C-alpha cells in the first residue's frame, strides 16, 4: 500500500452517494493502474454521477456508449491500439452487475472468447441501483428490491446470485478474480495482476450500496467486510484455470451478522437465514473453506 499513488485519477466532486462502494472501487483501481489507460464504461450509476456534461470526474481517457456493449467498445479500442502499434496500453471496461451479468453478458462473453487484451471490472452492487434498486441476476437470495418486494405471497428474491466469475473462468480467461472494497490491498494487487497478464482478464468487485442495501452511508466498509468474513462473498482468483482462495477468514462469522446490518434482508425469518447459511456453507465446502 505504501507505493500507492496519491494522485486522484477519479476526481473528487462527482455526484455519487456518500459511501458509494462503486466509486471507491474505481478510485482504487485507477490508483493501481495509473494514467496509461483507456476506460470504457457501461451505462449505470457511475456514468451518470461522473459525467453530467460539461463536467467530468475522469482524468484518464474515458468513453461511454451504451449499457450492454461495454465489452465490445473496449474490444474496438483494443483492436485499434493493436493495429496502430500502440502496445503497452491495456484498456479497461467497467460495468455494474446489470451491465455485466444481465444485459451485457453476451458482449462480455464474445470479447473474452475472442481473447482481446483488456481488463473487465464488474462493480457489483447487486441490483439496478441507477434506476432505483431493481433485481438483477446478481441480487442475492432473499434480498428485497423494488421488483422483488416483500409481499404476502413472495418475499424478496427467490433465486440465488448468478456466478459470473465462474462463467468467465469457464471461457478460459487467463485471470479471473473476486475482490471487495473492504480489502483494498487484495483488490489492488488483483487489478495490477490482471493488467500485467496478457489477454482478457476479469475482476469482480463487491461494492455495497447504502441506499440500495438499506444501511447508513458510514457502514460501507463494515458491510463489505462482513460479507467477506462470513463468506457470503469469497475472495479468490483463478489463474490459468487454477482456483485459489486469497483470503481465508480465520473464524467464519455467521452470515446473519452480515444480513442483519442491511434493511434489504430485514424481513428474513430465522429459518430463511438458516437457509442462506446453508447455501454459504455449501459454497465454502466447494472452495475448501472450513
Amino acid at each position, binding site marked *: 500500500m505504501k507505493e500507492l499513488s496519491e494522485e486522484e485519477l477519479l476526481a473528487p466532486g462527482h455526484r455519487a452517494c456518500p459511501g458509494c462502494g462503486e466509486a471507491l472501487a474505481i478510485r482504487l483501481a485507477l490508483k493501481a493502474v495509473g*494514467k*496509461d*489507460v*483507456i476506460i*470504457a464504461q457501461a451505462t449505470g450509476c457511475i*456514468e*451518470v454521477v461522473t*459525467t*453530467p*456534461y*460539461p463536467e*467530468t470526474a*475522469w*482524468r*484518464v*481517457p*474515458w*468513453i*461511454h*456508449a*451504451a449499457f*450492454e*456493449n461495454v*465489452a*465490445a*467498445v*473496449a*474490444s*474496438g*479500442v*483494443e*483492436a*485499434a*491500439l*493493436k*493495429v*496502430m502499434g500502440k502496445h503497452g*496500453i491495456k484498456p479497461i471496461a467497467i460495468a455494474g452487475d446489470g451491465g455485466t451479468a444481465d444485459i451485457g453478458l*453476451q*458482449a462480455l*462473453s*464474445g*470479447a473474452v*472468447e*475472442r481473447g482481446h487484451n483488456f481488463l473487465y471490472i464488474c462493480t457489483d452492487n447487486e441490483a439496478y441501483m441507477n434506476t432505483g434498486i431493481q433485481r438483477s441476476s446478481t441480487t442475492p437470495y432473499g434480498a428485497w428490491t423494488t421488483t422483488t418486494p416483500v409481499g404476502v405471497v413472495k418475499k424478496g428474491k427467490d433465486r440465488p446470485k448468478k456466478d459470473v466469475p465462474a462463467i468467465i473462468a469457464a471461457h478460459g480467461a487467463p485471470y479471473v478474480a473476486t475482490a471487495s472494497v473492504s480489502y483494498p490491498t487484495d483488490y489492488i494487487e488483483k487489478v495490477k495482476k490482471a493488467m500485467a497478464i496478457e489477454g482478457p482478464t476479469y475482476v469482480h468487485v463487491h461494492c455495497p450500496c447504502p441506499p440500495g442495501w438499506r444501511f447508513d452511508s458510514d457502514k460501507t466498509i463494515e458491510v463489505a467486510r462482513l460479507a467477506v468474513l462470513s463468506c457470503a462473498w469469497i475472495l479468490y482468483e483463478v489463474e490459468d484455470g487454477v482456483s485459489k482462495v486469497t483470503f481465508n477468514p480465520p473464524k467464519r462469522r455467521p452470515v446473519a451478522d452480515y444480513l442483519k446490518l442491511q434493511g434489504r434482508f430485514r424481513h428474513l425469518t430465522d429459518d430463511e437465514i438458516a437457509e442462506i447459511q446453508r447455501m454459504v456453507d455449501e459454497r465454502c465446502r466447494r472452495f475448501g473453506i472450513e
Partner: protein
Amino acid sequence: MKQVLTGNEAAAIAVKLARAKVISAYPITPQTAIVEKLSEFVANGELEAEFVNVESEHSALSVCLGASATGVRTFTATSSQGLALMSEILYVVSGMRFPIVMTNVNRSLSAPLSIWCDQQDSISVRDSGWVQLYCENNQEILDSVIQAYRVAEEMLLPVMVCFDGYILSHTAEPVDVPNQKEVDGFLPPYKLPHLLDPNKPVTMGPVGVPEYYEEFKCMLQEAMLEARRKLAEVDRAFGKRFGRRYGLIERYRSDDADILLLTMGSLSGTAKELIDWYRKRGERVGLVRVRSFRPFPAKELVKTLGNAKAVAVLEKDISVGWTGALFADIAAAFINVRKKPLLMNFICGLGGRDVSPLQIREAIRAAARAAETGEVKKSVRWLGLREKLVGLKA
C-alpha cells in the same frame, strides 16, 4: 481496371482501397460475402487491418465505435435484422459524431421471415442521424463507399451505403476498379479532432443534461443539412479524378417530362429501360432517382419535379399506417411550394417480389391518367399485389 464484380465484391474492394483498419461484422444474408471477402484480404495480408469477428451486429457497431474513437478508420456491413439489432448504437454513433461507414445490403424485415430485397430495413432507421446513400449499380457501390469515407470524416457523420440485396449484391457487372494510388490521392488518412489518448485525456459520451441535449441534436441536424453541400463537393472531386459523378439525385430524361417516376436503388435500372421505350414513342416520361435519402435533397427535388404534371413515387418500403417513406418526404418537400405536380405512391417489390416493366408501366399509366384529369383518386397503391389473397377488390 475493369473487373466483373458482384455488388458485395465491389463493396469489399472499396473498403480495402479505403484502407479501413478495424473491420467488425456478423454474418447475415445477403451481406455475408462482403465480410468474407474482407476476411480473405486480411488473412492474405492484402489489407492491413484487424478483423473482429463479433457475436452480434450490436457488438459489431460497438467495436467500430470504440476503434473509431481510438483513431482508426472502421467498417461494418449488415442487412435487415442485423441493422435492426444494431439500431440502438446507430444513434449513439451519430450522437458522438463518429465517421463510421457501413454498407447495408437491403433486405426485408421479419415477420414473416424473408431474406429477399426491399428497403424497409434502412428506411426504418432514417432518423438515426446517418447519411443514407442508395446505389443503382455495382460501380456506384464501389464509388459511393470511397466517397462515403471522405464525407464522413470531413463532416464527422456516419454514412450508410445501401444497395439492394441479390439484385445488386449477388449480381455480377463490369466495374471499373481504381488503383490504390488513385484512391490514396482522393482519401487522406483518418483524422479525428479528439481521440482516446492517455497523453490527452478526454471524456466521450457523457450525460446530456436538458440544458445541453437539444444543442447537441441541433448541431447534428445542422451537420446533416450541411452534408448536402459536402456530398456534392466530394462527388465533384471524385468526378474530376475518376470520371464518374452521381449527384444527390439522378435525373434521367426528366427535363421536359410530364410524367416522372421517382425511385431509389436498383429499381431505376429497370425503369430507365421503360422510359426509353416511352421516349421512342414520343411520350414525355422521365425518371428521377434519389441517391441521398438522408440528408434529403428537397431543393433539388422540388426544382426537378416541379415542372412535371404527375409524379409516381415507386418504393420498396412502407411506413405502416401511412404511406411509403419517400412519398411522405416528397409531399412534405412541396408543402409550401405553389406549383407542384400531382403525387402518387406505389408500394412495390416488398420481400423480394420482382418489379416488372409491366408493373412500372401500370404506375406510369395511372400517373398519366391523373395528369389528364387533374385528379388523384387513390394516393397510395400497391403494384404486383394479389388483392384476392388479402381480401381486397382488385
